[in-house]
């Protein structure tokens, strides 16, 4: 017990004092350290309060963009052409599923989900962000949606997501007009960035890629809304703090008539070609169809490379919008050349030209042949149009010279964009001295002027340009930009007792007026229009057969364009020539003659037999038949119809290029 003894002899007071001193020092240490802790917390909670409050809020508050609903598109009669349809997809949050493999297998069994889709899903689960939903199946059928909904309680972590997707109920019938929307790609994103629209597209998945969808993208898209939500650390939304609703895009009502469009499709079935019908009173496009077409819906969901290849490699080139593609105008240009001749005083209504069956430039040996062997003899302007006499127009073109022709044709808009509301338009080619110099760096030859007179040579015009030029013609010089948009309207949701949907602010399309074409003599318009009238009305004229028995007083002009250049003295025989080198059939027309309501231009490629009169004119007739229905419009010809000429017209009898 030695230790106890030692304790007894200790100096307790000294030890207690030492201990008290050391304890006091320790206590001071404790106080200092508490002050350090306090000052640190003070610094955080008082000095840096705002910084941390901001960070705390940015932790928990997220601004979720809410996409506006895209405006819908209607035809002139209110038929829905582009709508937003809910698409249901089955989404999975793998972190919330207890046994992923079994669950996916069970659900796939239930809904009939393919092995490939399951594999694709499992592949996607690797390396994705936590708690981000993954798509197991896109585009569920109604039956699948119902089946899953009934069984949903068994599968936590799986849910059905509904999204609006663009849908075009008429499929290929409207693709070349409406275009389509498709997923925003890098190029679109860059463009949006450039235009400063990125923020407005934060929640948008698709953008107009073609046609009206592209042209009116800004109007259709609308303005983004925002949802301010509180989220937890897993990004799950706890509650909504604030909601700014998006402004939906404006609806478009078009000038198009879907029924006319259907007739156009039917009339062109099995052919490559295009129809454009315009209301000359306001430039509104009634029908604009290019055949063959394709289904724009394919692109909305992202077209498969197999389908895309099929479209690209089809020799019928369905992706090309033929309504805005250049064709040689052929004889459909003759009324415009005639007008130029009248305006420049080169010809009058009465002046006649002798047609021996060919035309020769003075002192040049080359003969430009007429299609009619032996020629028409002495022929006037009206008859030359009716019968599409080439020699008359060779002669006229020669007298006018290329500059006079190209100057006037320029006023009709050839070689220029019409300004229609799609971006796919091509300008075509208006041959002129300047154009040839710029294009080939070659001088213009008089011989070329001769072919220009019958719409051949370098000429190409689009069916739309033809329709537009005809429209200017029937309006006697007034120019109205063709357009498909009739009105825009904003759908506004006004909350009353219930949700009231109120459609307000319909805004009609503003018709663009241009300075009219001034002729030296305004009566010249009527001479040309009269000639087109008789071309359809007079028995034996080129347009008559196709319009036999019609009751709406139509007028028009046929054309057949030579695609392949024939060797000297070679005879054209459609049946013996390569399909893609056969003639194109063209036709322009309008009705009723006195107060035109509709202008129709038709182009058909590589017809097997005949030309514009037998191939293109019947298409225009079907469109007009549909347009006028049972309306009967009195014609000066209907009471006094009698055969004036007994000559038999056959367009392909003698072939020299155009007629």
């Amino acid at each position: 017990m030695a230790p106890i003894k030692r304790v007894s002899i200790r100096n307790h007071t000294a030890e207690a004092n030492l201990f008290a001193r050391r304890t006091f020092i320790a206590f001071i240490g404790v106080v200092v350290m508490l002050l350090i802790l306090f000052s640190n917390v003070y610094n955080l909670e008082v000095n840096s309060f705002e910084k941390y409050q901001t960070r705390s809020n940015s932790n928990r508050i997220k601004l979720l963009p809410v996409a506006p609903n895209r405006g819908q598109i209607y035809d002139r009669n209110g038929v829905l052409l582009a709508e937003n349809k809910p698409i249901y997809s089955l989404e999975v949050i793998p972190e919330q599923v207890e046994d992923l493999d079994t669950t996916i297998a069970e659900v796939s069994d239930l809904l009939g989900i393919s092995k490939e889709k399951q594999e694709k899903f499992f592949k996607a689960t690797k390396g994705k962000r936590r708690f981000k939903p993954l798509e197991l199946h896109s585009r569920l059928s109604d039956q699948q949606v119902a089946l899953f909904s009934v069984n949903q309680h068994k599968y936590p972590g799986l849910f059905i997501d509904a999204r609006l997707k663009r849908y075009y109920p008429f499929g290929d019938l409207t693709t070349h007009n409406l275009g389509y929307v498709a997923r925003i790609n890098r190029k679109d994103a860059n463009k949006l960035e450039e235009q400063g629209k990125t923020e407005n597209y934060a929640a948008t998945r698709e953008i107009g890629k073609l046609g009206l969808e592209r042209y009116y993208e800004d109007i259709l898209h609308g303005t983004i809304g925002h949802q301010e939500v509180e989220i937890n650390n897993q990004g799950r939304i706890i509650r909504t703090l604030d909601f700014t609703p998006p402004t939906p895009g404006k609806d478009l009502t078009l000038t198009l008539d879907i029924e006319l469009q259907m007739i156009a499709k039917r009339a062109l079935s099995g052919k490559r070609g295009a129809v454009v019908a315009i209301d000359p009173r306001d430039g509104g496009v009634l029908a604009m169809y290019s055949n063959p077409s394709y289904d724009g819906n394919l692109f909305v969901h992202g077209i498969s490379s197999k389908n895309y290849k099929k479209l690209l490699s089809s020799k019928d080139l369905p992706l090309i919008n033929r309504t805005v593609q250049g064709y040689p105008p052929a004889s459909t240009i003759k009324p415009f050349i005639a007008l130029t001749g009248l305006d420049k005083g080169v010809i009058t209504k009465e002046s006649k030209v002798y047609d021996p069956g060919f035309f020769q430039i003075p002192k040049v040996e080359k003969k430009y042949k007429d299609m009619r062997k032996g020629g028409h003899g002495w022929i006037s302007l009206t008859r030359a149009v009716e019968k599409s006499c080439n020699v008359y127009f060779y002669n006229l073109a020669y007298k006018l010279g290329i500059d006079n022709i190209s100057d006037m044709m320029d006023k009709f808009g050839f070689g220029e964009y019409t300004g229609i509301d799609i971006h796919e338009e091509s300008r075509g080619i208006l041959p002129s001295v300047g154009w040839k110099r710029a294009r080939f760096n070659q001088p213009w030859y008089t011989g070329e002027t001769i072919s220009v007179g019958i719409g051949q040579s370098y000429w190409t015009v689009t069916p739309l340009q033809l329709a537009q030029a005809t429209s200017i013609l029937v309006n006697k010089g007034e120019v109205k930009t063709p357009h498909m948009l009739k009105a825009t309207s904003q759908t506004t949701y006004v909350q009353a007792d219930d949700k009231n949907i109120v459609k307000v602010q319909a805004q009609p399309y503003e018709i663009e007026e241009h300075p009219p074409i001034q002729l030296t003599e305004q009566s010249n318009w009527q001479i040309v229009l009269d000639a087109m009238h008789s071309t359809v009305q007079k028995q034996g004229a080129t347009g008559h057969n196709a319009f036999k028995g019609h009751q709406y007083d139509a007028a028009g002009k046929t054309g057949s364009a030579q695609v392949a250049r024939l060797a000297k003295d070679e005879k054209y025989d459609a049946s013996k020539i390569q399909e893609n080198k056969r003639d194109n059939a063209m036709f322009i027309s309008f009705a009723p003659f006195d107060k035109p309501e509709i202008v129709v231009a038709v182009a058909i490629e590589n017809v097997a037999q005949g030309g514009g009169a037998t191939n293109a004119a019947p298409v225009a007739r079907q469109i007009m038949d549909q347009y006028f229905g049972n309306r009967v419009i009195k014609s000066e010809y209907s009471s006094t119809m009698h055969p004036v000429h007994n000559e038999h017209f056959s367009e392909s009898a003698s072939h020299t290029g155009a007629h």
Partner: protein
Amino acid sequence: MRSTGHDQAKKKDIWQKLHIDLPLLVGILCLMILGLFVVYSAGGQNADLVVRQGIRLGIALVVMFFVAQIPPRYYLKWAVPMFVVGLGMLVAVLLVGTMGKGAQRWLNLGFMQFQPSEVMKLIVPITVAWFISQHDLPAKLGNILIAFILVLIPTLLIAKQPDLGTSLLIASSGLFVIFLAGASWKLIGTCVGLASAFTPVFWMFLMKDYQKQRVLTFLNPEQDPLGSGYHIIQSKIAIGSGGLNGKGWLQGTQSQLEFLPERHTDFIFAVFSEEFGLVGVSLLLITYLAIVMRGLWIAVNAQQAFAKLLAGSITLTFFVYVFVNIGMVSGLLPVVGVPLPLVSYGGTSMVTLMAGFGMLMAIGTHRRFIAQ
């Protein structure tokens, strides 16, 4: 007046007989009750969690009560055997211990899991205090060196598990005894110098990668905000966004929306600061200071050198808990697994802590018997 004075004296006697130090108990209960409220908020308002913590606190209070009944002189008798057995168990843990959370801390006794390092938190200061009080104070250099070795062995064994937090607490509990025993300032200066010199060696050879990572994260948490820096960044955001008055109980967005990790355990201080602000933090710190002051008062008033040293060490070690935890949660210190004493949800260390308070109370209430 006299009667109330007499009543008070009588009341005091009751607590004296029960060997409970009333001011200490009040301080402890304040923290425990506060802790239950914060655990409820931090645990996603889960009542189960609060009930479980309540039961645990009850058990801890009972343990404290029983420990308080043991006269301190018995510690003297058992100091050496307990220390030896304790060391044996620490070795056993390293050899046959069970793994948990990447560390080997548990000993499977068949009927229960046992964590020897927890018991060592009490045995080490008892042993060192026993050894030093064998001789006159201030302790001589030779004895201090031996005391150092007594501290170093268990510290290294626990650090090897690895359990940096516990080894730190055990080392400080022993070192406090040496400090209070009057180790010369020269010696203390030398030790601090040596420790600083030893730091690079410690870093390169003794620290595990995850421990190094914690230190690196502490030095620059923004470097890896989604990985290892996440804890400390979210914790600082929680504290800072609390402001002067806090967001209110159950209103802390950082904790309620689960941005804060380890909310109801090690990082509960961040929840508390977010919801109660600087005002709440001040009151909490004052409560801890009051407990420390009461513990030191008991130490100073103890009759025996052994009792003084042990009481002082227990009190100061308790403060180390507080300092390390709050320092770590508020970004002053690297992340070390030390709970906020009496407030954090969790079991084992709570029981050890309360056993320590039991000893403190025993020292405070049994002294008269010694005097008699």
